Structures are given as structure tokens and as C-alpha cells.
């Protein structure tokens, strides 16, 4: 087990508290990176979002045995209008993270593809829309179908 001073030396951000974190965040926000940086930022944000969902998912599965009433309430929330919109967000995060992950794998395995990283990113957005929009339509069906029925279209 490394000593505390050794650990602090290894992770300078721990030693300097929030200052170094703030400096990194400031740089990320003020640097006008292009597609590659935006792709990376979205990858991080979607990754954190997916992680939070996984934690939530572990908790909701636990509730099946732990507190069935709370489980039913949570599931009812998932099926509600805001719940469904959050589900669309989750789907978007998963899809983006997966597609950009593929882009990174392609670039990693074939370094000559670095010359086309922007094109691959835009292509991944085409797939994102092609897969994501129908997916969102299916998830939001209980919301839009009654509206269409109400105005006599469906």
C-alpha cells in the first residue's frame, strides 16, 4: 500500500484539491476544439450518464425483493411521460457512446484512418439519427399515438 504522500504525488489533483479540477474544466470550456474534442466531450458525458443509469438499474432491481411497492412506483415512473423522455435520453447516450466507441476502435486499429476521423464522426451521426429516431418513436408511442388519434390522423 503506497503511503499518503506518495499517493498525493501520483494524483496531484488530490493534493491541490479543487483548483486543478477547476483549471481543467476552464480549459475544456474555453478551448475551441473541433469535431474530435466535441466527440470526446460527448463520449465522456454519455459515459457518465450511462454509469448513473447502471447504478439506478442496480437499485431498481434490488427493489424487486427489497421493497416491491417502491419497485412498482419506480416502474410506473419509467412508464410515465417524463420517464419515457429520460429513457429516450438514455437510448441516445448508449447509441452515441457505442457508435463513437466504434469510431475510436477503427482509428486505433488503422492509424491511417485518422485522416478521416471527422468524416467517420459525421457518418456515425447519420447512423445515430437512422437508428435513434425510430427507437425514440417506439419509446414515445404511448405519448404521440393518443395525440394523433385525438386529431383524427391515426
Amino acid at each position, binding site marked *: 500500500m503506497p503511503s499518503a504522500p506518495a499517493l498525493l504525488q501520483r494524483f496531484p489533483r488530490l493534493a491541490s484539491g479543487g483548483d486543478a479540477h477547476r483549471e481543467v474544466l476552464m*480549459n475544456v470550456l474555453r*478551448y475551441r476544439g473541433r*469535431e*474530435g*474534442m466535441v466527440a470526446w466531450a460527448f463520449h465522456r458525458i454519455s459515459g457518465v450518464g450511462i454509469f448513473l443509469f447502471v447504478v439506478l438499474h442496480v437499485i431498481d432491481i434490488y427493489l424487486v425483493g427489497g421493497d416491491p411497492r417502491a419497485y412498482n412506483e419506480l416502474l410506473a415512473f419509467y412508464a410515465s411521460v417524463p420517464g419515457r423522455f429520460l429513457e429516450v435520453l438514455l437510448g441516445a447516450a448508449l447509441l452515441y457512446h457505442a457508435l463513437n466507441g466504434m469510431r475510436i476502435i477503427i482509428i*486505433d486499429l488503422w492509424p491511417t484512418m485518422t485522416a478521416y476521423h471527422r468524416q467517420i464522426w459525421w457518418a456515425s451521426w447519420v447512423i445515430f439519427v437512422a437508428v435513434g429516431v425510430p427507437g425514440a418513436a417506439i419509446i414515445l408511442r404511448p405519448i404521440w399515438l393518443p395525440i394523433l388519434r385525438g386529431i383524427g390522423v391515426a
Partner: protein
Amino acid sequence: MQVDLRILRYDPERDKKPHWERYRVESGPMDRVLDLLHTVKWEQDGSLTFRRSCAHGVCGSDAMLINGRNRLACKIRVDQLGRKVSVAPLPGLPVVKDLVVDMEDFFAKYRSVEPFLINDSPAPPRERLQSQEDRERYDDTTKCILCAACTSSCPSFWAQKSYVGPAAIVNAHRFIFDSRDEGADERLEILADADGVWRCRTIFNCSDACPRGINITKAILEVSSAIVERRV
């Protein structure tokens, strides 16, 4: 053209932290940001401090954060930026004064990858010959001018200052893939460290920032592939 120039100023003897100062500067049609800085220093405020040497994109002294991106002040024309220009020191490096950053750590990392020819075999009577194809292999990475625009644009470097950084890897690449060099194993060993090539997150800020147009991310990935395959 009247330019609204903002410069992030910092004098360690006077200021607690950096602050922006505004200058109105007249810019000619072919003026570069360096010309604006000269105008400020020579005509408005002689205390403005920045580095520059050749002023023609070769020495790499005047890399700065210009309108949110790392560039050479002597290479970017004002008309490419518009009427509003902001200039700040390179991000992620300690500021000495105004636009001057401390490059000691940057050069220490450059030296750590042994950026020189290693060849212990007896020298031939004339030069060590090389085919055009072998020369082509590392042509891109010979162009580096050590301006630090790449390393200081890298979010991985901002977050982990111990990361050796894109510039050092580019200069290692220049010798690792040189057919006349025999030190590739040593350098790959150095760069296989946790603070070596593995900190690259393929963000491409380095490639976008490089004033010499080096495909830095490709060079980094070629080095990491060579580490994995132990083959140059």
C-alpha cells in the same frame, strides 16, 4: 481595420491572478496577430511580454491561445480571425508573465524520449544511406518545431501534467521509425509507461493545433501499435 484586441495579462509582481485588458489596434490587410502584439508593445504598453524570434513560423516561439485555439501568432492573419481577437498564454502551462509560459517541463519531456540518433554500429566511410521509402516513413514527424501548441491543447495533458504529451511522442516517432536508428526498443520502453502513449484519448486537438500540419494523432497511434507489436 480597427481590431478589438483582448490580451490575458499577468504580472506576478503586481497581479494576484491573470486579467483581460482591451486594446484598440489598427490592422493592415496582411497583418498577423504578432503584428498586433508588436503595435501594442511598441505604441501602447511597453510592459506587454511575449516570446517571438524568427516571426515566420519556423522557430516556434510564439505559440499562444488565439481566439480559443492554439496557434502561432506569426502565422495567423488577423483577417482570418475577424475584428475581435483574444490572446492568452498556452493553456495548461505555468504562466511566467503575460503570454510567456514556463517551457522547462515541456523540454524535459522532450529530452526524456531520447530525441537523437542512437546507432552504436561503426559509422560507414560516408553517410548512412537510406531509401526514399524509409525516409518517407517518418517524414511527417521531422517537421516539429517544438512550439508546444499540441501538448498544451491536449485535455489529457491538462488533466494529468505527468503525461509526456504529443510533442515528445512526435519526436520519439521521428527516430523510432528511422531505419538508421537502433534505439527504438529503448524509446518504446519509455513510452509504454502509464504516462506515455496510453494517455492519448484520440481527441485530435494536437493535430488541429499543429502549425506544421503534422498528423500527430496518427504518429501517437503508430507508436502505440509498435509498443503492442514490439515491431517497428
